[in-house]
């Protein structure tokens, strides 16, 4: 159908040009032309009508099954589309959206979690102290069913970089799985709220915390650690969903045996081939404290039977202490979920200079690329590029910046290497000004959403630049290991955030919304053609998925950095939920009550958020909306 449409477009264009010369042409030809024009016009209309029925780009069916109205994992499905097929709320009626109920979590720290909805219950996990609440949606006002308090070690707050957040829980097979800041993974019975198992996998005394949302794949709970700013060696573990024992551990640095690189490992680029690169691409011993933490998002493709996860920045930030490519940090692994064995790897940012963690979400899509059907993975990356990777091989199909980038000059598609801008290289004692994007990336963890209806990827992101100065750094286990003075400033244009709709097929933005503050919340898009996201001032916004036009907004009690979800309630109607409560790295100035006079506070983020304290205060409230 698409080919027909393309031909039609060509003919239409030819006819349009032809009309101009019409006056000099005889009647018969004119008649023929009009006929062709009509035919082409008809074909165009037919194509447009047919498109939704046969979308050109869509997630693999196995990874994104038909929508049942529930929301059982933060990314909605294994393909991480954050797309709901619910269409009761539409572009037309969204303006009447109103609050159905609210719920205070009682924790005034950054609320980055996505609520879960399973059956008649909504589950929310708070930042430290990581309380898990179950609210009964079947009763008016959604009263509390139960709450589970894991009582994590308070000292863990002292080693949690960038606020004490939690990015959500996951549901599988009658249990809720979530992580606590002090390094426990806990399974809780979804019906009763009683803990089933509790496995201690992180050691706060070396700076290890866990903030990520787990992903449950084939009876395994996949969890990674945080601590890239503390010199913690990154890993991802698979825990048995039944009893919680660790089935495999894959480190992000070190010898191949510990990274789980075996004979199956077939990276696409030469730079990732070699023995024990996780050791040889580091100075002696540096890999043991080299970061590469897995604290972001994991996707899973059941057809290929591969999980995809990113690895965080190498530590310390000061690159002088770690010459080399610093494998396998700031990259992406494809692994076999049963054994953890790596299939391929691609490094977004070899020898990272600016804290470009590679942990963002990857949306799994099937599409035609340059005439060939491809299984791809779309990834708006912290270093500023939207990457399109072949997810079977790890080959980069395209990498296009989605905002102002001057720290690099593009990606060499032949070698796969990021072309670093030597003017923005940092080192000890050197002040480098105006590096874009910042350490927080053009886009940080805040997940984007993809709508197969529009073919657009909705990217909430930052528009920031920074000054950096490498300083002497000293490794002391359990204390920060950064070695960089950072001061962030607003990016070109003066607005600090943006919400970009990215045309995946054309690899260019469809529209961009400017936001005063970084858009630190996730996004969700629905079949009703509405995109929801929140701002750090506290506005919860609904915009048109096709044009980006603001359709509705609601001011919540605090800044929003959470992940919106939408679900079908027990009454059969569509609801939208969001946690409001400012914090995270961007909002630490408010949630941590930092002093704006110090430009380097919160690793430099406080400098660009000085006025946030005048706009919002800490909070922690769940808001749920519905049509009247």
């Amino acid at each position, binding site marked *: 159908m698409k080919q027909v449409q393309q031909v039609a477009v060509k003919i239409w264009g030819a006819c349009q040009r032809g009309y101009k010369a019409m006056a000099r042409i005889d009647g018969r030809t004119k008649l023929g032309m009009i006929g062709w024009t009509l035919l082409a016009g008809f074909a165009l209309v037919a194509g447009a009508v047919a498109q939704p029925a046969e979308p050109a780009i869509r997630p693999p069916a196995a990874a994104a099954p038909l929508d049942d109205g529930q929301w059982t994992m933060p990314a909605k499905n294994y393909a991480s589309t954050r797309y709901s097929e619910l269409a009761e709320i539409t572009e037309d009626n969204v303006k009447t959206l109103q609050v159905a109920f609210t719920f205070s979590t009682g924790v005034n720290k950054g609320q980055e979690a996505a609520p879960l909805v399973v059956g008649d219950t909504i589950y929310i996990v708070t930042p430290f102290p990581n309380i898990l609440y179950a609210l009964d949606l079947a009763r008016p006002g959604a009263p509390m069913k139960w709450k589970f308090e894991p009582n994590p070690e308070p000292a863990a707050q002292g080693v949690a970089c960038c606020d004490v957040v939690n990015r959500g829980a996951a549901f599988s097979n009658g249990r809720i799985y979530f992580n606590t800041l002090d390094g426990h993974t806990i399974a809780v019975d979804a019906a009763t709220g009683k803990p089933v198992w509790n496995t201690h996998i992180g050691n706060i005394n070396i700076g290890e915390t866990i903030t990520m949302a787990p992903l449950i794949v084939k009876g395994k709970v996949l969890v990674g650690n945080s601590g890239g700013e503390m010199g913690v060696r990154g890993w991802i573990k698979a825990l048995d969903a039944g009893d919680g024992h660790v089935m495999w551990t894959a480190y992000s640095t070190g010898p191949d045996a510990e990274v789980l690189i075996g004979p199956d490992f077939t990276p696409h680029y030469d730079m990732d081939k070699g023995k024990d690169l996780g050791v040889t691409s580091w100075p002696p011993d540096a890999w043991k404290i080299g970061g590469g933490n897995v604290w972001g998002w994991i996707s899973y493709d059941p057809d290929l039977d591969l999980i995809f996860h990113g690895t965080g920045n190498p530590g310390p930030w000061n690159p002088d202490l770690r010459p080399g490519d610093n494998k396998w940090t700031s990259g992406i692994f494809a692994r076999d979920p049963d054994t953890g064995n790596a299939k391929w790897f691609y490094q977004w940012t070899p020898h990272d200079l600016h804290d470009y963690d590679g942990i963002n979400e990857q949306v799994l899509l099937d599409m035609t690329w340059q005439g060939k059907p491809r299984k791809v993975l779309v990834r708006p990356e912290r270093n500023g590029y939207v990457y399109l990777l072949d997810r079977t091989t790890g080959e980069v199909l395209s990498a296009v910046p989605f905002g102002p980038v001057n720290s690099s000059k593009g990606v060499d598609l032949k070698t796969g290497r990021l072309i670093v801008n030597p003017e923005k290289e940092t080192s000890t004692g050197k002040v480098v000004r105006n590096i874009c994007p910042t350490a927080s990336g053009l886009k940080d963890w805040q997940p984007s959403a993809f709508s197969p209806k529009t073919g657009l990827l909705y990217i909430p992101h930052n528009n920031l630049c920074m000054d950096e100065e490498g300083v002497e750094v000293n490794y002391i286990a359990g*204390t920060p290991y950064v070695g960089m003075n950072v001061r962030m*400033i607003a990016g070109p244009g003066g607005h600090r955030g943006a919400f970009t709709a990215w045309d995946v097929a054309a690899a260019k933005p469809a529209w961009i919304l400017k936001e005063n503050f970084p858009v630190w919340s996730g996004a969700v898009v629905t079949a009703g053609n509405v995109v929801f996201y929140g701002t750090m001032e506290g506005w919860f916004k609904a915009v048109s998925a096709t044009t980006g036009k603001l359709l509705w907004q609601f001011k919540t009690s605090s800044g929003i950095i959470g992940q919106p979800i939408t679900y079908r309630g027990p009454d059969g109607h569509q609801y939208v939920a969001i946690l409001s409560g400012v914090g995270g790295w961007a909002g630490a100035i408010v949630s941590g009550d*930092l002093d704006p006079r*110090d*430009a*380097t506070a919160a690793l430099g983020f406080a400098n660009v958020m000085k006025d946030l304290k005048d706009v919002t205060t800490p909070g922690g409230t769940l808001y749920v909306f519905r049509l009247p």
Partner: protein
Amino acid sequence: MNRCLPLLLFAMLAIAGCQREERDTRPQSALGSGKQPTPVTVLTPGGERPSPSDNKAAAFEANAFHLSQGKRLFNWFNCSGCHANGGGGMGPALMDKKWIYGGAIESIHATIRDGRPNGMPSFRDRVPDDQIWELAAFVRSLSGNVPSSAAPGRDDDMMVHPSENRLPNAATLGKSP
């Protein structure tokens, strides 16, 4: 004689300049242990009690040498990793007027030495006691309450903020970047 007097005075003044401050880089056990318990709260049943006094605190509190050593150690021991250059991050801000566990140098010393339950690690045995006093003195100076003659110098590198004793008041700071 009249002409000689100022000369004599000047000479005496010049000789006074030879007086050099003793830098006690070795622990001075004679100065008291500095281990008097300092309560975190001001509330005590039984009415007012005398405030704690400690020779050791006085020797460190407004001493330029110790303050500058404290500033160096603040970076060396990664205090700056959590508290930035006073503005805070993973840990609370230190340059404001808010003291969660008390702002007396004894309290700060106790905080560094023994840690606090909500994330402050204990540096007991990891940092010699005199260095903890130096750190405590520097931390106290961050909020601009030591004599300007003793406060350590500005960070010259990225000029993240002026020297500790010349910080503008938070209220007068520009609102929007």
